[in-house]
């Protein structure tokens, strides 16, 4: 392969600055000791991190988002595994249509989903329920979970399974000791990607969130709509660091390009 020339490297550098500048600036500003957005020129201060931890609404919305993301991604994966096995191991009527149907939330803008859930919750009297909010997140993240589980189920070698069966393994042990370990990378990747998608979701949730079910992104959006202060930068900086850790975890476990680009 050819090497990059100076011009390419210049472009690349400018591009990386463009991509990382907004994240870096948030982290820098979060260490200010002043009461407004400014660079921490008089040394680093953790004042605004303390302020974030002292604000009960931030802490509550953080725990809600964490719970929401944990449960919705776990439910999504639990539904995606049998669905993926059905889609890859059987030929049946309507297979392609069902596959497209289960992937359809990707094609529906989140604002449309938000409006749909708002109307549904309003008519069914479900507003403010954490359980139903979780289920809406399951719908939205399901395609991500399914895609990754599908990718690992498709590449599965059926011969191994047959070998196990012919060596006397029962149906249950084939499932738990052969199939499950084989799809585990896709399952883990799907869970992590779903978790992040659910944790960060704003557009859909902002429609159905009530004072009792304010997630962290919704709290942050409402706060930014009022004012931009160092408090919001410290919360954001924590999120950037947490995402970076998740990313490294994902890269080690499955490979980030596999999770984000699809088939490896």
């Amino acid at each position: 392969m050819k090497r990059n020339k100076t011009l390419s490297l210049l472009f690349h550098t400018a591009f990386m600055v463009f991509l990382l500048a907004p994240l870096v600036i948030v982290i820098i500003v979060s260490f200010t000791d002043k009461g407004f957005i400014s660079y921490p020129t008089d040394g680093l201060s953790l004042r605004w991190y303390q302020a974030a931890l002292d604000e009960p609404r931030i802490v509550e919305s953080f725990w809600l988002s964490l719970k929401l993301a944990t449960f919705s991604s776990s439910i999504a994966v639990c539904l995606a595994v049998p669905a993926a096995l059905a889609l890859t191991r059987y030929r049946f009527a309507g297979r392609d249509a069902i596959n497209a149907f289960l992937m359809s939330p990707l094609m529906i803008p989140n604002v449309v989903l938000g409006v749909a859930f708002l109307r549904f919750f309003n008519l069914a009297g479900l507003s403010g329920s954490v359980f139903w909010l979780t289920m809406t997140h399951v719908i939205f993240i399901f395609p991500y979970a399914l895609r990754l589980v599908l990718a690992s189920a498709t590449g599965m070698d059926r011969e191994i399974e047959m070998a196990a069966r012919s060596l006397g393994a029962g149906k249950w042990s084939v499932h738990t000791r052969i199939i499950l370990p084989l799809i585990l990378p896709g399952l883990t990747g799907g869970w992590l990607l779903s978790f992040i998608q659910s944790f960060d979701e704003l557009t859909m949730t902002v429609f159905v969130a009530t004072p009792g079910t304010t997630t962290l992104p919704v709290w942050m959006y409402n706060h930014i709509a009022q004012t931009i202060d160092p408090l919001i930068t410290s919360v954001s900086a924590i999120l950037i660091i947490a995402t970076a850790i998740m990313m490294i975890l994902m890269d080690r476990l499955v490979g980030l390009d596999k999770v984000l680009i699809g088939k490896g």
Partner: protein
Amino acid sequence: MGTRMRKDPYLLLSPALLLFCGLLVIPLLLVAILSFYAFNGTTGVIPDFSPGNYFTIITDPFYGEIFLRTAGMALLVTVICLVLGIPETLILARMHAPWRGIFLVLVLGPLLVSVVVRTLGWSILMGRQGLINDTLLLLGLIESPVRLTFTFTGMVIGLVHVMVPFMIISIWATLRKLDPTVEHAGRSLGGSPLTVFRRIIFPQLMPGVLSGSIIVFALSASAFATPAILGGRRLKVVATAAYDEFLNTLNWPLGAAIVVLLLIANIIVIMGLNYYTERKYRMIFASGDPA
């Protein structure tokens, strides 16, 4: 045994299908019905079935402007993502280990950081005393700070930042299927770098470029957080207009009609371009298969 085998896949799919029917199909139908209701400031939502809301959106220039602004914004963002994304992907592809892996993670990483956080970063950078204005003043390119927040330009810059990784992912996926020796062959047969790019590399990248454009256009056209934070109340786009109808003016039927139109437009663009891409590139994919 035979009948049991045929029931198995449906049984395995039933939990997901049940959830989707109950919590996706029904709510979407409810919104479609709501969009035909009427609204009155004093009595609220009136369940009479008429296409009045759609008529309002089509005839009122206020909504026409919102839809045009959204389409223009999405188109501009797509073009800029192409201009930045194609060269960056090619540069990434030419890198060697470990740089390629490191930069790929750095390019794709922002995708996983909350859009609210990224837009906040741009809001700070674009402020009157933000880094962008400071730098431009220092370089003498401008005389006084320029306004970037609450402008169309600011909105586009923020959205490009959110969308460009999707473009790179898409082109990268196509690029990996390419045979690098073809490029060498083109060069050794006397093609200039530009000719080789235009006639050999670019046509092969087209499937990725097209699918990336579909994703970027569709996501930009329905984006909410970035236009809401960087565009403000005045520069409404479709998603923020729907938000205002639902949560501020409370004209739910009109808001429902807006999102129904957004959904239809979205599906037409995605399906249309997908159909075009598949028809045009079936040949390439077919001939790429050794069997």
